């Protein structure tokens, strides 16, 4: 550990630490533009100059380029260094416009801060400034090249860190230009990070353009709920409107970055289509009336048919608090559920995964970056958990071997080996690899087995839900455990289906899934449904069956913060608060428990109540649009109105999940405290023997999959992300395509007994033969296939467009 002295403070740092980082450890923030902890040093901007007084280097040097060494004495305040930095800033400001008041970066601009703190308050340069034409980079990122100070952060992030190739640096000398080959939407699903890392206003957030300065915003640390990873975010709210999401640094979860789904998926929270009023029989009503009505009708139904005739359906976008309330109610009132999963297989796979994820095996995104071999099995990181792809890329950049076993045409921004295997083959391959001796491994996986054998920090990334089966999950866990037994620092990283799937595994009741519950509705056992923050009508793969079943119900009560088809079909509907308003606890895919505080009090945005002008000048003692309560609270209110109901606070976990009681709330800012992992007891685990075999695939199978935009329940209503969606298509292997006389670019009709849809055909050699891949896209009526994985014996394919159609 080299020891050095910086501004009279001595500090010991690990080998390889740069002086700029060493200074940070003793609280000295050396100015920087090009240096970024995630991107490393390049020495491009010269603003981090400090003076080396003693040691191997002498004089003014760049603190980001020099590694701390024993005996160094460094001054950041030496007049020579201060003067050097002042000149660098003046020089960078030569071409920079002097119009901060009209720049959206103003107020959180590193260049502003450095210019002022560097002592450059007066412009001396009188010449012409270099100017550029800007490019249209799409709906998310605004481009203003005149503000560039050539730090190279953007191109380094975009190409080196994230692995996308359509933005970079062109030109030379005073013509250096950062942008695309031609105007057009950025292709990377991580493009929004440009906004956070550019130290000036070249890239700014387009949807929130001119909505306010940073100091105008209510800024709250929170957690992203658009996939299972739970990246940390900062929520920006102004005038009761969520206007912007920024990445929030977390050393263990997401690092410095987030994906664009997480950054731009929040539109639902302040949308003018958000339901704000309770409804009964389709007509708006007062919350109390709706509550009385729901309670009254529930009471009637239970009186007539018994308490088991009511069921709760929930989902993985609810907080732990809401899920616990659902569980408590079902337990104490004898209701069915809560059914928190869509299908039986999905629920089995997810719960088995949760049961296997012991503290020693679970790895964070950060640990994933340090793996030396990553085996992705039955998961499609970019589409299911985007930041996982970015972490896998960092591992690859550090030399890790990456191998993907999946039937889908998985694309990752890195070099990897893809084995397109059918869903039923994945577990077999994993089992082959998991055998104690690699000699047993069959020929084509021997190479991978040998690599695993040599690896020291292998991680198995495994899907656990709609595509990867329970058996795959089981084999992935066994493989990871065997590798650990073989003395490796092996890890297991599950890609779950929702933000709080882990908690759902813990809180699901009986039946755990809607598929099983439907049987109970169909045979008349269940007569009333309370649907909490879930939308079966756009999530269940067999819509016709679902609609028939729902029609048999005497009552459907829906609680949700978005306007869904299910909500519209409800007899009684209650608007709920979003996660931004409730805060709450989420458990991410590595069983990390994360809590967020409410970001704001909710209510209809002033931009809507005022219709774009001043808010209405009416005095009232409440905030308009705040009838909504948290779903958990609402549930408690409804049942407490039942005779024999329960009245408890939603924050109480005793009785339903004692491991969470006495659980100490911590703000979403730190890493300490309860930002820990808890061993969770779930129904399925290593010791639960009963497990279904692989569903045999008949004549191939059709997979209904997730895509980065257009499938996730909340973000799919974002108009900015909708602009980025590509037309959902059927993807299959070219040889399969020719079986049906199809070619890339044709259109085809897929039909089952339940209905038909028409989509473009894409062919890809990296799709497993026999597998058809279709996104569960909001623009498709895909709920005709009955299962997320369905045998092709029930599907008809017919060419409807293209050559020879």
């Amino acid at each position, binding site marked *: 550990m080299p020891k050095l002295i910086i501004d009279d403070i001595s500090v010991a740092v690990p080998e390889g630490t740069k002086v700029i980082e060493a200074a940070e450890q003793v609280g000295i923030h050396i100015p920087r533009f090009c240096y970024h902890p995630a991107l490393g040093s390049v020495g491009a901007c010269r603003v981090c100059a400090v003076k080396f007084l003693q040691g191997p280097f002498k004089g003014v040097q760049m603190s980001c380029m020099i590694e701390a060494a024993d005996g160094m004495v460094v001054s950041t305040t030496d007049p020579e260094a201060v003067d050097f930095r002042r000149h660098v800033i003046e020089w960078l400001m030569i071409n920079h416009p002097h119009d901060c008041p009209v720049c959206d970066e103003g107020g959180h601009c590193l260049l502003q801060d450095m210019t002022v703190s560097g002592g450059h308050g007066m412009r001396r340069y009188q010449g012409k400034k270099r100017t550029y034409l800007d490019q249209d980079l799409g709906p998310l990122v605004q481009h203003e090249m005149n503000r560039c100070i050539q730090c190279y952060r953007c191109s380094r992030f975009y*190409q080196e860190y994230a692995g996308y*190739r359509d*933005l970079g640096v*062109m030109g*030379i000398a005073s013509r250096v230009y950062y942008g695309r080959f031609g105007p057009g939407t950025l292709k990377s699903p991580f493009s929004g990070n440009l906004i956070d890392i550019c130290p000036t206003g070249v890239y700014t957030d387009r949807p929130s353009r001119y909505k306010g300065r940073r100091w105008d915003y209510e800024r709250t640390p929170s957690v992203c709920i658009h996939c299972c990873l739970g990246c940390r975010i900062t929520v920006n709210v102004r005038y009761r409107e969520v206007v912007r999401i920024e990445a929030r640094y977390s050393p263990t979860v997401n690092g410095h970055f987030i994906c664009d789904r997480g950054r731009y998926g929040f539109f639902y929270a302040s949308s003018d289509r958000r339901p704000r009023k309770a409804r009964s029989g389709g007509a708006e009503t007062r919350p109390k009336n709706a509550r009385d009505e729901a309670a009254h009708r529930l009471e009637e139904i239970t009186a007539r048919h018994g308490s088991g005739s009511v069921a709760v359906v929930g989902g993985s976008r609810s907080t732990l608090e809401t899920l616990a309330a659902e569980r408590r109610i079902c337990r104490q009132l004898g209701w069915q559920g809560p059914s928190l999963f869509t299908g039986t297989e999905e629920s089995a796979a997810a719960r088995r995964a949760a049961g296997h994820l012991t503290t020693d095996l679970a790895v964070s995104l950060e640990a994933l970056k340090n793996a030396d071999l990553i085996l992705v099995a039955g998961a499609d990181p970019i589409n299911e958990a985007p930041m996982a792809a970015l972490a896998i890329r960092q591992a690859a950049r550090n030399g890790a071997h990456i191998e993907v076993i999946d039937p889908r045409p998985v694309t990752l921004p890195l070099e990897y080996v893809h084995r397109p295997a059918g869903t039923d083959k994945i577990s077999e391959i994993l089992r082959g690899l998991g055998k104690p001796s690699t000699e047993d491994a069959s020929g084509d996986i021997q190479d991978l087995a040998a690599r695993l054998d040599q690896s020291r920090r292998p991680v198995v990334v495994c899907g656990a839900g709609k595509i990867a089966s329970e058996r795959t999950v089981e084999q992935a866990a066994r493989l990871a455990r065997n590798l650990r037994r073989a003395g490796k620092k092996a890890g297991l990283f599950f890609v779950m289906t929702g933000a709080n799937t882990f908690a759902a595994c813990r809180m699901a009741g009986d039946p755990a899934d809607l598929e099983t519950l439907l049987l109970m509705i169909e045979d008349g056992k269940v007569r009333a449904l309370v649907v909490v923050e879930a939308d079966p009508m756009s999530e269940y793969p067999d819509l016709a069956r679902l609609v028939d079943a729902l029609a048999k119900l005497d009552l459907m009560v829906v609680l949700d913060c978005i306007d869904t088809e299910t909500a519209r079909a409800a007899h009684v509907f209650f608007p709920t608060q979003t996660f931004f308003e409730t805060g709450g606890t989420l458990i991410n895919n590595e069983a990390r428990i994360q809590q967020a505080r409410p970001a704001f009090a909710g209510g209809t945005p002033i931009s809507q109540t005022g219709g774009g002008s001043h808010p209405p000048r009416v005095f009232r003692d409440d905030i308009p649009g705040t009838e909504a309560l948290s779903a958990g609270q609402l549930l408690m209110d409804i049942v407490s109105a039942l005779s024999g109901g329960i009245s408890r606070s939603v924050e109480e976990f005793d009785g339903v999940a004692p491991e969470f009681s006495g659980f100490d709330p911590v703000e979403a800012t730190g890493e300490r405290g309860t930002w820990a992992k808890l061993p969770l007891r779930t129904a399925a685990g290593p010791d639960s023997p009963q497990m279904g075999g692989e569903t045999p695939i008949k004549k191939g199978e059709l997979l209904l999959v997730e895509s980065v935009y257009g499938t996730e329940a909340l973000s799919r209503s974002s108009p900015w992300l909708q602009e980025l969606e590509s037309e959902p298509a059927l993807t299959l292997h070219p040889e399969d395509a020719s079986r049906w006389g199809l070619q890339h670019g044709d259109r085809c009709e897929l039909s089952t007994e339940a209905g038909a849809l028409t989509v473009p055909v894409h062919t890809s050699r990296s799709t497993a033969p026999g597998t058809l891949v279709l996104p569960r896209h909001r623009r498709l009526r895909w709920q005709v296939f009955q299962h997320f994985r369905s045998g092709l014996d029930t599907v008809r394919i017919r060419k409807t467009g293209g050559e020879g159609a």
Partner: protein
Amino acid sequence: MIPEPTLSHLKDRIAAADHPRELVVDVMFALQEHYGYLSDEAVETTGALLGMSPLQVEELATFYTFLYREPVGRYVIHLCDSVICWLDGAESLRDHLCRKLKIEMGRTTPDGLFTLLPVCCIGYCDRSPAMLVNRKVYGPLTPEKVDELLEKLKQESE
């Protein structure tokens, strides 16, 4: 469209290279040879040949002085814009050239004959001030010698 022989020759060379990307400048020059300048299409073709995105090709294309991303005149004059030539009057020579051709640096004469561009030291400091015309070096230059040369080139082109 690039003629098939050129294209297949390039493809062969790329196939034989250990790291195809190291040929990117050669490919760009070959295509520039064909189009007279490095057109957008040439940038895209280069990318397709080498497995690079057009942007990645553009990053390099716009870095090199002798790759022209816009159409240029028949004679491309690169006037040395570095320290030894400055000492020997390159700046007044530049003014002279601009006056004579009635264009600014970086432009092409309306008749399409001359393009005037600066270049960093071309290694002929012993003949400063120096310039290149279609890659051929001239120097040490005086306004008279420049006039003579321009006249000669004009006549040649007729």
